[in-house]
């Protein structure tokens, strides 16, 4: 697996739109992201179609903020993020929305989330006719990951998808990610080195913003 450690001294400057890098779904150039204040960066990377790219870093470094920056829900403080206007994103946050009462069969849940661009793998089939609120936490999390992967999105953003999963579930999650048929590129965040090694084509190591 290729690995890149991408961090440099901080710099100031406004985010500016620019021409999209050929062959890349998204490309970040010296990107600094955060909220009121910068949290992470500068960082440069790109994600090509079909790639599974993992973002690694210690807890609290701002990995989720970087994902939100790509999704457009965190602020770009400096650098440039190129993203096609037609790019279709799927985004799963660190805590998938799970209500105490969710009267949806698994297949209804997937249908309402437009996750019909690929057939669910056999190992998920047993959950499709059960109410999603009666699935275990791990089963529900895997179903939400599949909902993103099968949504037809060009780029799927997953925030800590292996959290709270047992080893067998991590293995199934890895299989889902390593099976390229039926899903677009993936940019995911994890603090689990072994999972990133097994599931991703490339890994980006990120560090907190330093002024």
């Amino acid at each position, binding site marked *: 697996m290729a690995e890149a450690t991408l961090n440099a001294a901080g710099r100031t400057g406004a985010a500016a739109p620019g021409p999209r890098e050929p062959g890349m779904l998204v490309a970040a150039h010296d990107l600094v992201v955060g909220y009121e204040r910068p949290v992470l960066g500068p960082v440069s990377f790109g994600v090509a179609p079909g790639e599974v790219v993992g973002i690694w870093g210690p807890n609290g470094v701002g990995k989720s903020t970087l994902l939100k920056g790509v999704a457009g829900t965190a602020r770009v403080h400096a650098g440039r993020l190129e993203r096609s206007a037609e790019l279709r*994103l799927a985004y799963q946050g660190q805590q998938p929305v799970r209500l105490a*009462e969710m*009267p949806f069969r698994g297949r209804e849940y997937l249908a*309402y989330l437009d996750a019909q661009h690929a057939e669910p793998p056999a190992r998920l089939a047993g959950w499709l006719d059960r109410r999603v609120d009666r699935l275990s936490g791990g089963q529900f999390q895997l179903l939400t990951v599949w909902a993103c992967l099968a949504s037809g999105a060009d780029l799927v953003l997953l925030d800590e998808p292996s959290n709270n999963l047992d080893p067998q579930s991590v293995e199934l999650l890895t299989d889902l990610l390593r099976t390229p048929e039926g899903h677009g590129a993936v940019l995911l965040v994890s603090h689990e080195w072994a999972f990133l090694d097994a599931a991703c084509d490339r890994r980006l190591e990120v560090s907190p913003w330093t002024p």
Partner: protein
Amino acid sequence: MDPLSAFTDPLFRLPLAAGAVAAAVLPLLGALLRLREEWLAALGLAHIAAGGALAGMGLGVPAVASGPAAAGVAAALKTFAAARGNTAYAVMILLGWSATLVLAANTPLGESLAHAMVDGQLYFAGWPELGGLLGFAAVTLAALPWLMHRLIRARFFPEHERANGLPAWRWHLAFDLLVAAGMALGTATVGLMGAFALAFLPPWAAFRVAPGWRAALMLAAGMGLGAYLLAFLAAMAWDQPFGPILVGGLLAVTGAVAMAPGWQSRSG
């Protein structure tokens, strides 16, 4: 009186039909409100509708027009202020309650009108109420498949809209306006608490026992309609006020369904 005459007497056909439309459709909107954890919306908008209807009647505007207008303005303000959640609806309850009682105290016949609004004035429902409810039901049933898809996706993947630059405010506003219209028309026919109970109780029971979403919607609508017909019959047969009988009937029907032994294991 003969209980069956409640269904056959031409005098009661329009009220029966108007209430039946509200009883079948309000639980559908209530299910989506429950999914959004905004079920208090039903009570908030009903209070605003009651206050608006009373103000309208004081000015000579029919309740069937002024109630939905007031509730619609409240729903639109809430959307544009980005005031999601139950806090905005709690404010509506307090505002509507306060306005209704103040207007009742300062309007000719206000007290009896306010009483009718809270208890329901189903037996006085005519073509304006039935026409309004049929129009509301037609719009709701036409829009719901499209709207529901987007609302459910927004509920479970809240970042999806912003990440893809979707104009989400349009469908959130459309839904808020539908709820406002439904609660206002419901309040004008089956009363404030009756309309709230129709939007709250059937979804509550359906969410507990239904094996899936489509089943939950059908069960909620079925419970709403069934309890309404029972209440209509009982109120006529025993000469009781309709609103409280409807709420009592809904409590009994939905309570029995929600607590029925075996449902939970079957739906698992």
